[in-house]
């Protein structure tokens, strides 16, 4: 039975932005049945579809946090200031920060939603994962296992 939902966000074609979906690939090789894995790709607004009826969610995404590449920080969306693009020229301007803000206003956020943010090095098209972000993947998996352990024990 599902205890924890992990949602990977990002574009697989853009260097370190791929870290969320790639982490879902990794976890699916060894997945425990208590983990629900979702690759949300790069449609941030689509995440709204996964919020209802889920209690514990971890979102994994590349985040610009002004830290060294590969740095991993776990935080709740309301604890930190997510920088919003409140006046986008296109639907393409609505990203994760805007989606979470919208979800919060609509009371759609589950009580336990955390973001595992990983600082990217490069998000060039067709780039590969940088070594620092590659290294952060194992930290992220550890973090997810810790969360699962806490929820099941």
């Amino acid at each position, binding site marked *: 039975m599902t205890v924890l939902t992990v949602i990977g966000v990002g574009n697989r074609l853009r260097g370190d932005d791929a870290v969320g979906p790639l982490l879902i690939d990794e976890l699916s090789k060894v997945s425990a049945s208590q983990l629900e894995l979702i690759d949300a790709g790069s449609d*941030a607004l689509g995440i709204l579809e996964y919020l209802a009826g889920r209690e514990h969610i971890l979102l994994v995404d590349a985040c610009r946090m002004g830290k060294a590449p590969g740095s991993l*920080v776990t935080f709740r969306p309301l604890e930190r200031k997510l920088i919003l693009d409140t*006046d986008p*020229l*296109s639907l*393409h301007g609505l990203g994760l920060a805007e989606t979470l803000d919208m979800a919060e206003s609509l009371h759609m956020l589950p009580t336990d939603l955390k973001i595992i943010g990983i600082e990217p090095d490069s998000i060039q098209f067709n780039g590969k994962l940088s070594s620092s972000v590659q290294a952060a993947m194992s930290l992220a998996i550890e973090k997810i296992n810790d969360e699962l352990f806490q929820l099941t024990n």
Partner: protein
Amino acid sequence: MSRDLDIKVHHLTRVEGHGNIIVNMKDGVLEKAHLSIVEPPRFFEAMMKGRSFHEAAIITSRICGICSLGHQLTSLVTTEDALGLEISEQTRLLRKLLVHGATLQSNVLHAYFLAAPDFLKVGSVFPLIATHKDVVLRALRMKRVANDIGDIVSGRAVHPITPVPGGFSRIPEKAELLEIKRKLLEEALPDGLETVETMKALAGAIPQFERETEYISLKHPAEYALYEGDIFSSDSGATAVKNYLEVTNEYVVNHSTSKHAKFNRSSYFVGALARWNNNHAQLGPEAHAAAAAMGLKPNCFNPYMNTIAQVVEAVHCILDSVRIIDKLIENGLKNEKPNQSPTRYGRGIGSTEVPRGILFHDYTYDNKGNIIEANCIIPTGQNLANIDDDMLKLVPQIIDKTKAEITLNLEMLVRAYDPCISCSVHMLEVDFIE
């Protein structure tokens, strides 16, 4: 009047692609008015080279989370053209159902999340959540039904998995299709008609601006063309898709890294308004009633009305999806395997209408079924020259307004086209002031 005006609106600066509005007027003479796009240069060809025909559509669907299905289907059509893969009637119908789902989703989100806040003069969708929560929830309900079509027919709503060259790797069950039909009729249709009422109430806030231009879309003899057809220009009529380069005529401009396009005039329009102008006669009575209610007439030359054409299309997509599901069930769902035996190798060209307009993919395969050359012309690239021409006509007409009002009018204009400004990066930016 003699006036100096200097408008620079830098948008989306935190992501890789920028969309900047630049207007310069000196002593009442307009020197510059354009949208400058700073996209990563032509990554597409590099990304596709060496990929096998099994991979091409998977890669292209990942270019963008919002346009994933459009790129995927256009890629499949292109590969099938290059390799001589025939597809079945069932595949064609299932793909048309997918196109309807994607068009419904994108059009509705654009109308509610980008255009409605402009019409209500609230700046963005965020204040709307507090004041018009029911309307935002309606938009999300319609998005969900559209997503369900994607989930059931393509295996996944974003970056679909079951549409493959030559067909589908999984055929949906009859019960699944009937459940979508139920949601379309019981949920999406009432919400769609409510949307028409909402937009009708807001239509008075749509700027009155007209500029006749060339309208280009697909055209099909038997239906409102979204999935297939010939290229059709309102100026010069039909051109076969294989001759698309005669239509797009891409060229480089100094103010943008994205190429511009032109055909019979200095610019042309692609998207819902072009489809409406070229193909409105093929829409059903409900879509026509919606158009009439919202004040959209044939041969509409107001680019701001693109949003209204999108809502008309949303009504069409809901009802035509029901028709397609009925047809699939009437024909009897067949557990077909995709046809993946190439009968030739070489160049293939494909085109479909994606929500923002006509999209072209063009691949050349070697005799092992790997891509050696690829080209992709997206709707936004084709609309850029048209947006610039709109601005050149619009700015002198609104020059007596304040700078803030002019800026808003220009932003609304750009938003009406809903450009793909930065494909695919939704980097979360977090301020870590402890």
